[in-house]
């Protein structure tokens, strides 16, 4: 099991909700599987993604990532987990403006010490970035920046790929192609994909779909 979430609850201070944003949430995700999480804005989708990515703590319950329990982990151990096992594609891309496309794609893999030039070339090719490798983020369109963020995440060959609206800035054809690539690489590397999206069309392409509402998974 790559990901196991058991009865996790989380309350956001000053959220004004009057209840936990996540309330006794549980789910499992195996290697090679993909899961789409949908929900209204503010339903807690991104919060759950941050908890799974060891970016934030939770109030109760437990999350196991590749068999490692996240509760009680020190910052250094959480950092190591993020570095080695998880890749995140953020809604705002979070690519480094001062690095060119090639360095941005390689960054996470290099931090983890498992950079693979041929994989990088393959990803760049598949995502249509080969001609843009020496460009800087400010010279790219929003869609191109999003593809760079996806390539950086996939270049790590993570155990778990987390994606927050990864195709939000892409047209329908590009979005389908990128999603197909993500699913293909997840299958190839025996990892798992946890994807947050608003789009039922995108969600339908993944193995499983869950909807988050009122802090509960349905």
């Amino acid at each position: 099991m790559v990901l196991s979430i058991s009865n996790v609850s989380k309350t956001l201070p000053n959220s004004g909700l009057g209840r936990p944003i996540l309330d006794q949430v549980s789910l499992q995700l195996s290697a090679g599987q993909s899961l789409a999480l949908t929900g209204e804005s503010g339903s807690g989708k991104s919060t759950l993604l941050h908890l799974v990515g060891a970016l934030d703590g939770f109030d109760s319950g437990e999350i196991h990532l590749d068999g490692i329990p996240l509760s009680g982990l020190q910052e250094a151990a959480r950092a190591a987990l993020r570095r080695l096992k998880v890749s995140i594609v953020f809604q705002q891309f979070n690519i480094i403006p001062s690095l060119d496309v090639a360095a941005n794609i390689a960054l996470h893999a290099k931090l983890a010490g498992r950079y693979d030039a041929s994989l990088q070339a393959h990803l760049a090719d598949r995502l249509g970035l080969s001609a843009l490798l020496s460009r800087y983020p400010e010279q790219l369109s929003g869609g191109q920046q999003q593809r760079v963020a996806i390539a950086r995440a996939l270049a790590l060959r993570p155990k778990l790929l987390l994606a927050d609206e990864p195709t939000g800035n892409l047209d329908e054809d590009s979005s389908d192609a990128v999603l197909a690539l993500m699913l293909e690489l997840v299958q190839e590397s025996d990892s798992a994909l946890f994807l947050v999206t608003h789009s039922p069309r995108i969600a339908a392409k993944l193995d499983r779909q869950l909807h988050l509402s009122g802090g509960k998974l349905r």
Partner: protein
Amino acid sequence: MMRAAFHTLLSYWSRHRFQLFALVAGLALATTLWSAVQAINGQARQSYAQAQDFLQQLDGTSLVSPGGSLHLSDYVTLKRQGWKLTPVLEGQYRNAGQSIDLIGIDVLTSPQVARLFPAESLGGDSDFLRGILHEPGGIVLHPETEKLLPSVLKEMQIFRSEAVPLGLAVADISLVSRLLQRPDDLSRLILLGDTGPGAMPSADSGADMRPPDTRALASLPAHIKLAPGGTARMNPGTLTESFHLNLTAFGFLSFIVGLFIVQGTIGLAMEQRRGLLRTLRCLGLPFAQMILILVVEITLIAVASAFIGLILGYFLAASLLPGVAATLSGLYGAEVSGALSLQPAWILSGLAMTLAGASLASAHAFYTLWKLPILQAPSTQARGQRLLQSYTAWAAAGIGLSLGGVLALALVEGLIGGFMFLGGVMLGAALLLPYVLWSLLGMAQARTRAPLMQWLWADARAQLPGLSLALMALMLALATNIGVGTMVSSFRLTFVDWLDQRLAADLYVTTLDDAQGAEVQAWLSQQGLTVLPIRSKEMQHSTGQLKIYGLRDDELYRNNWPMISARPEAWDLLVQGRGVLVSEQLARRADLQLGAHIDLPAGWPSEILGIYADYGNPHGQAMVSLPQLLKNAPDVDNLRFALRLDPTQVKQVINMLQERFEIPRENITQKDLAKARSMAVFDQTFLITDALKLLTLAVASFAIFTSLATLWNQRLPQLAPVWAMGVRRRSLALIDILRSLLMAGLTALLALPLGLLLSWALLVVINTAAFGWRLPVYLFPMNWLALVLLALLAAGLAALLPAWRLFRISPSELLKVFSSER
């Protein structure tokens, strides 16, 4: 992992080269000004230490005649009584407008000769003794002193030694007594034995020697006393400490101004990299390693900047040092080498100061980073908002510091209290500035109805967080310029008045010897001219060196003498020989008031009749009537005198003196020439002050420029919406310049009262404690206006580049603000 992370963090600078330049330039400038001042101080202290070491050798336990000289017969008598002594004669040799201090020692009996002039210091010259003793005689001096040597002395055999202090020449006592025309005088007799009469001579005479026993002392003639070693001269270090303290304060101020640039730049870099840092942490870079990389990064930048600063500082110091040497010589009589030597301690201290400054400047940024939650969205406004919240706290700290400064002035005496006051008030005012500006801009905004003007005021307030450090630096620099400028100009005005009073006579003549002096005076009197002799006696007083002049009663003195306070009948009493006039610095040093008595040797009048200004003189001075001087010191030189003439007669009298008495032209000085020379010395004195205040202002202007230029990216989200609503780019660019002028103008206006307070503290507190004289404060509104205009010009120039970029920016760049592509 570290390598990739390091490369990623460093890559920021490759895309923000101007910010890197601003950071390096800020640190380098701070180091330059600080290290230049330290190099100058270090060089001066090295010169003092060398001089002190040398003079201590000649300042052993001695027999002296307080208030006068020893006679040669005293030496003979004491030798016959069995005292082991070696004589010393000191004096100033003047010739043709040049002068040099001479020390005469008996090279045959003085055991110090071998230590003072080791063979290698004289270039291994084996003919030293022969050259010193044989005609025409030899003198030993520092190589740099040779150019100051009166031409007559150049006929002597010159021995150059780095061991001899600057401005001093050492020779055999026979030659010195001949040159000084004091064949029977001795300044002191250094004890060679360790008891008194009958003791064996020792090569280790000096300050560490045991004094003679009381029986031996009792046998001394009444006019001879024992003087312990190390007291005959004042340490030049203590005399000049205030000057160096002033320079250090200036250097420190410049350093702080430089650090403002650094803190602003580091803060901005950290702010702009917040997204990058967050991403790196999301990608698994441990926080501790990220901090380590940032520390390494800032250390590397600081070290590189420090070396640039040290190189620039060395050249700056080398260019300023000759001026400083002239100041120290002219104002304090302390000679300092004009050539700068490189000292390892200076390099290390400059490096340490830069690293400490960089740490201090980046501490806040690191603290902010430490407190930064990993998931907080990057916000370029966050820093500004936090700063705004801090303004009230800053203002409170500023008020506290100012009150602390005032308290220090009241409780701590002297220079330290003065500098604590200045430091407290200056820093306090700087901390208050953002709050005051924020409030002023807010008030203006509240009173404005036109929408664009409202936006202008609001935008100026929004820009304040990014500019506040630079504006604080500008205020400190402007206040320093106003304060120091007012001090120097007040001093200059007072000095010019004082010169007019002191140099009231039309012509000053120095004859070749006493006989000629008497002859010339008699002849001039026969011509119906008023001759005013300038005769003086030098002696040691409990406050240091003291020169007593004898005045002939003349309306020139009565009408012009620069009295600060005097009894109504002071001149009459002086002429009657019933009192003495003292200089302000002597009065302050000895704590003398009108009517009090000064401790002079028996026979001299002692009641204080008046206190007069004597600016620029490091030593004490007093005036008695000429008959009183001649009664107490009948053998004083009769070489110099002043002449009161009709201006039309001046040329004719000069010609007559030259033709009839063959007095060299350089021995005859016209009033205007003497004044011009004095003013030249004065102006030279404040050359370094002028240079440092302009440099500080330049650094502050640079701080505004770097702030505006680095804030450029943050400005677009504020400007683009206004542009989209129909305000042209040209208008926006002009408004941008106007805003900078507004901020700089407000800052300059606020700097004015601070500068005046600074000038008051410098003139009334610091100067009085440091020099011993108090100066009146004059106001120079035109100078302030010029400074305000200069500040506006600097701010305008600083705003020009960002405004030009705004004027030229393409609409697509502005449109990016509204998309997610930025």
